[in-house]
C-alpha cells in the first residue's frame, strides 16, 4: 500500500515537473535584437526524419563515435528492458502469462541488462572525469562531479538491485517467509530436506548446517519440484547476483538476520522513484528534450539570418553535458593557451542555462559568456556533432544578441561605441599578474621614435584600402599618437580594432618599427579597457535596480 502511495506521489511530482519545465522553458525563449525589447516568438520547422532517426537510432551520436553510440545504446536498451520487464512487471506480466522473474532466462536477461546499464554508466563517468581533469589542468577548477547526479542515481539503482538479488538468494528468513506463504511445510513435512536442497543448489545460507544424506536430497528435490520450481529455477543464470551471493556468503547469516535485504529493497525502490521524480529537473530530462529538439530543422545560412537573435531555451535542456562539442571546437587551442573555460561550447551552454535560470540578468554570467563567445568562429563543428541535435551555431549568435541587448556588446563594439572622453578616463588596471603591468612596445619610446611618418605602413595596409572612407587613422598616425603620449586614445581607434595582423606594415617599414606588434598590443589594452567600462556600466545598472 505504502509503495502505491509513494509511486503515485512520485508520478504526480514527475508529471507536474514535466509541465513546469515545459511551461517555464517555453516562456523564456526570446528574440533579441539590437536596440529592441526582446520579444517572444516561436519558430518551429518540423522535420520528421530528424525526429525519427535521431530519437530511435541516435544517428548523430553514431556519427560522433561508434563506441560512444554503442555504450549509450547499451544503457538505453538495458534500461528500457529493466523498466518494462522488471520495474513494471505488475503491468506487463498481465500481458505475458509465462513471465516469471525467478526463472532462468529472465534472471539472465535481467542481469545482462543490469550489467549493460552499470557498465555504460561507469564508462560515462570515466569519460566525464577525464574531461574534467583535462579542463582543470589547463583552466581553473571545474566541477568534477558536476552534472553526474543522474548517473550516480542510476548506478546506485543498478548496484542495489544486484545486491538485493544476491541477498535474497542467500537469505534464510526470506526462504522461510516464502515457504510459509506458498507451501506451509513444517519440519515434519520435510522443511529441513527442502532447506538442505536449497542450501546446496540455490546458494541458501543457513544459520545451522544440516547434516546431509542422499535420501533427504531426493525428498528435498521432490518438494522443490512441487512447491518452488514453477517460480524459482536455480539462480546461476543471474550471473552477477549469484556471483555476489557467493562473495557475501561468509557474512550472509549476519546480513540476513538484520534483514538487510528489506533495507536494500527500500533503497532500490526509493532510488527508482527518486530517478523518476528528478527526471524533469535533472540531465535525464534530455530523454524528453532530445526527441523534441531533433524535430527542429537546423538553421541554414539562409534562415540563420532570420533566426539570428532567437535564443531557444528548450533545446538547451537537451544538453547532457557530454562535451563532444568541446572536443571538436575549432578554438579549443585558445582555451589551451588562455585557460579560459568559457571558450568551450559545453561550458557556454551551462552559462546560458544559468542565465536563463536567473531571468537572463546575471552580470557575472554575462561577463563569462562574453569572454568565451568572442573567441568563437561560428565554424559550426559543435552543432554538427551535438548528439542531442542542438542547433549550437544559432545559440552562439543568439547569445551575442542577448548580451548586446543587456548592454554587454563585444569589446570592439564597446570600444568604437564609447566616446573618447569616457574611453580615455583613467580606469584602475586589473591586478592580474602578467597582464597590463609590464611595459610593452607601446610604452617604450625606442620602439616607435624612429618613425618618420613616411606612410608606407598606411599605404600597405589592406584595412585602410578596404575601409577607405570609414577608417579613422592609418598605422602611421597611430605611431604619431604614441609619440604624443596618447596611448589610450590610440587603443580606441578603428585601425587598432580592425587590424588583420597581416604584418604588411611591419614587413615594409623602412625604419624597422614593429608596427603590427604595437597595434596588437594596443588592442590587448583596448580589450581590458572595454571590459572595465562594461563591467562598471553593468555594476551601475545593477545598483540602479
Amino acid at each position, binding site marked *: 500500500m505504502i509503495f502505491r502511495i509513494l509511486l503515485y506521489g512520485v508520478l504526480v511530482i514527475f508529471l507536474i515537473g514535466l509541465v513546469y519545465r515545459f511551461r517555464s522553458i517555453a516562456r523564456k525563449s526570446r528574440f533579441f535584437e539590437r536596440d529592441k525589447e526582446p520579444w517572444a516568438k516561436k519558430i518551429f520547422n518540423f522535420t520528421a526524419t530528424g525526429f525519427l532517426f535521431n530519437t530511435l537510432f541516435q544517428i548523430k551520436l553514431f556519427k560522433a563515435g561508434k563506441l560512444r553510440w554503442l555504450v549509450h545504446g547499451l544503457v538505453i536498451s538495458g534500461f528500457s528492458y529493466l523498466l518494462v520487464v522488471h520495474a513494471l512487471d505488475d503491468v506487463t506480466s498481465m500481458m505475458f502469462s509465462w513471465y516469471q522473474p525467478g526463472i532462468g532466462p529472465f534472471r539472465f536477461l535481467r542481469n545482462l541488462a543490469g550489467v549493460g546499464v552499470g557498465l555504460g554508466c561507469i564508462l560515462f563517468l570515466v569519460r566525464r572525469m577525464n574531461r574534467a581533469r583535462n579542463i582543470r589542468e589547463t583552466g581553473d577548477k571545474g566541477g568534477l562531479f558536476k552534472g553526474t547526479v543522474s548517473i550516480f542515481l542510476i548506478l546506485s539503482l543498478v548496484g542495489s538491485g544486484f545486491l538485493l538479488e544476491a541477498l535474497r538468494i542467500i537469505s534464510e528468513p526470506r526462504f522461510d517467509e516464502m515457504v510459509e506463504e506458498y507451501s506451509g511445510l513444517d519440519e515434519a513435512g520435510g522443511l529441513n530436506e527442502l532447506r538442505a536442497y536449497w542450501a546446496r543448489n540455490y546458494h541458501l545460507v543457513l544459520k545451522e548446517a544440516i547434516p546431509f544424506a542422499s535420501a533427504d536430497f531426493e525428498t528435498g528435490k521432490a518438494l522443490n519440484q512441487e512447491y518452488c520450481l514453477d517460480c524459482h529455477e536455480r539462480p546461476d543464470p543471474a550471473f552477477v547476483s549469484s556471483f555476489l551471493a557467493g562473495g557475501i556468503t561468509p557474512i550472509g547469516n549476519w546480513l540476513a538476520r538484520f534483514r538487510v535485504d528489506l533495507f536494500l529493497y527500500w533503497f532500490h525502490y526509493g532510488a527508482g522513484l527518486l530517478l523518476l521524480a528528478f527526471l524533469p529537473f535533472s540531465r535525464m530530462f534530455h530523454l524528453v528534450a532530445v526527441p523534441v529538439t531533433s524535430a527542429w530543422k537546423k538553421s541554414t545560412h539562409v534562415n540563420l539570418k532570420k533566426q539570428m537573435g532567437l535564443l531557444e531555451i528548450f533545446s538547451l535542456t537537451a544538453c547532457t553535458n557530454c562535451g563532444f562539442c568541446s572536443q571538436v571546437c575549432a578554438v579549443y587551442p585558445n582555451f589551451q593557451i588562455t585557460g579560459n573555460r568559457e571558450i568551450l561550447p559545453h561550458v557556454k551552454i551551462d552559462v546560458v542555462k544559468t542565465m536563463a535560470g536567473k531571468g537572463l540578468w546575471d552580470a557575472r554570467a554575462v561577463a563569462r559568456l562574453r569572454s568565451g563567445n568572442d573567441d568563437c568562429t561560428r565554424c559550426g563543428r559543435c552543432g554538427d556533432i551535438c548528439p542531442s541535435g542542438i542547433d549550437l551555431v544559432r545559440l552562439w549568435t543568439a547569445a551575442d544578441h542577448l548580451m548586446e541587448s543587456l548592454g554587454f556588446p563585444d569589446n570592439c563594439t564597446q570600444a568604437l561605441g564609447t566616446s573618447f572622453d569616457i574611453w580615455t578616463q583613467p580606469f584602475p588596471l586589473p591586478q592580474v599578474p602578467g597582464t597590463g603591468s609590464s611595459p610593452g612596445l607601446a610604452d617604450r619610446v625606442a620602439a616607435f621614435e624612429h618613425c618618420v611618418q*613616411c606612410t608606407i605602413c598606411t*599605404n600597405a595596409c589592406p584595412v*585602410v584600402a578596404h575601409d*577607405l572612407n570609414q577608417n579613422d587613422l592609418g598605422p602611421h598616425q597611430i605611431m604619431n599618437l604614441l609619440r604624443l603620449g596618447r596611448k589610450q586614445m590610440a587603443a580606441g581607434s578603428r585601425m587598432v580594432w580592425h587590424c588583420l595582423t597581416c604584418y604588411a606594415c611591419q614587413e615594409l617599414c*623602412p625604419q*624597422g618599427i614593429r608596427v603590427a*606588434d604595437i597595434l596588437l598590443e594596443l588592442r590587448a589594452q583596448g580589450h581590458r579597457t572595454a571590459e572595465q567600462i562594461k563591467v562598471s556600466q553593468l555594476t551601475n545598472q545593477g545598483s540602479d535596480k
Partner: protein
Amino acid sequence: MTEYRKMDCDLLVIGAGMAGMVAAARAASLGIRTILAGNSGSLIFVSGMMDYLGVYPMEARKSVADPALGLAGLRAAEPDHPYGSVDHEQILQGFDFVKKVLGKAGLAYHLSGGRNLSVLTAMGTLKPSFMVPKTMEKGTRLFGETAEKKSLLVIDIKGLQGFSARQVAAGMEHRLARVIPVTVEIPGISQTIPPIVLAQLFEDPKVQEAFVRQVLAFSDKVDIAGMPAVCGVHNSLGIQQRLENLTGLPLFEIPGLPPSVPGLRLKNAFETSLAASGVTFLSNVTIKDPVFNGKKFTLTGSTDNRELSISAGGVVLATGRFPGNGLHARRERIVETIFHLNVHQPVTRSLWHGTDFLTRQGHLVNRAGIETDKDFRPLNKRGAPVFDHLYAVGSILAHNDWIRLKSGAGVCLVSACAAVDRFHKRRSKAGP
C-alpha cells in the same frame, strides 16, 4: 623559435636598397652564391627614376645636358668621389645591366641614349634623369624643340594628396603652348587615398573606365596627358596602354612624393629577379657581430625572434646612410654600425652643417661616409683596405652628395656592379 640556423654563401650583401639589390643581382649574374639581407621597404621611398649626374658643378643653376661632360669635370675636380673609381663606359654598362635585370622581371625602363632626360615632376619642375620607367618616357619627349607648340593635360585625382594638377600646370605654363589641369573623381573615394592604394584600385577595369570617361572630353583639346604615377602596381605599362587606347591620348606618369608607386614597382621587380636568379633573400634580417677568421666572415643575422649564423667569403656593405642605419650619428661623431669602419667626417660636430641651410654647396655632413680604394674596399685610418673581401657600395660612400649632384642611382648601381665584379675577379684569381 630558438632554432639556430647556419647558412653559408660566397657573398653576403647587407642592405636591400638600390645598391644592395643591384649588387645581389650582379652577383647572381656572375654565378656567385649570394645571400641578401635587409629591409627592402626603403625602396618605396625612391622615385623610380635613375639619375646619372644631373647637376655639376653643384653651384650651377641648371642641370647638365650631357652627364659624360659633367663626369669628366667631377673626376678631375673631386678624385675621391665614387665616380672617380669608374669611367663613363662602366656607368653606362651599369645602367644597361639594371635595365635588363628589371626588364626580365617585367618592369620596362627607358634608358637615355647619352643625354639627360627632362622629367616633369609633381612640383611642376623639370628634373634631369638618365633612366626612367617606360611609363614616364613620353613625358621626357615633351620638352624638346617643339615644346612651345604642344598642349598638355595634367590630371590629378580627388583624394590623392601631394599631387596637384594646378600646381604642375602653373609650373609648366610658360614652357608649353597650353596646359589644362583637370581633377578626376574615382567612385567610392570621398576622403583621402594613399597613392599605393589608389594604384591598386587602378588595376580594376571599372576604375580605369571611370577615369577614361572623365578624360575623354579633353582628347581633342590636347596633344598629350600627364597623370600621377598610379597606373597600377603590377603591369603598369599594360594599364597605361589600355588607358591610352581608351582615351585616344598619349599618356605619361608624373613622379610624386614618397611613398611612391614606381618605387614599389622597382622593389617588386628586384625581388622577382632575386627569386628567379637564386639569391637567398633574408627579408628584414638585421646583420650584426661580424667576425673574420682569416678566410671567411661569420655574421649573425637576427629577426625579432630568432638568430642565424651566416658565413660568407665576401661582404658587400650596402646599408645606406642615416635612414637605412648604415651610418649612425652619435652626439660627437658618426659611426658605421656593423663593422665599426672608419667614417670620413668633419672633425667636430659643429662643422657638420653650415649656417645656410639651403646652401647649394651642401653641408660637410652630406659628404661623410666610408672612404674606399679604387675597388670600393673600405679603408682604415692608414689608408689600407680593412679586409680583402669587404666592399662598401651605394650612398654610404664618402664624398658623395648624391642629392645635390642628382647622381643617387648612378653611384649605387655602378659601385655595386664594380665592387661585385672585382670581388669575382679577385676570387677567381685566388681560386683553383
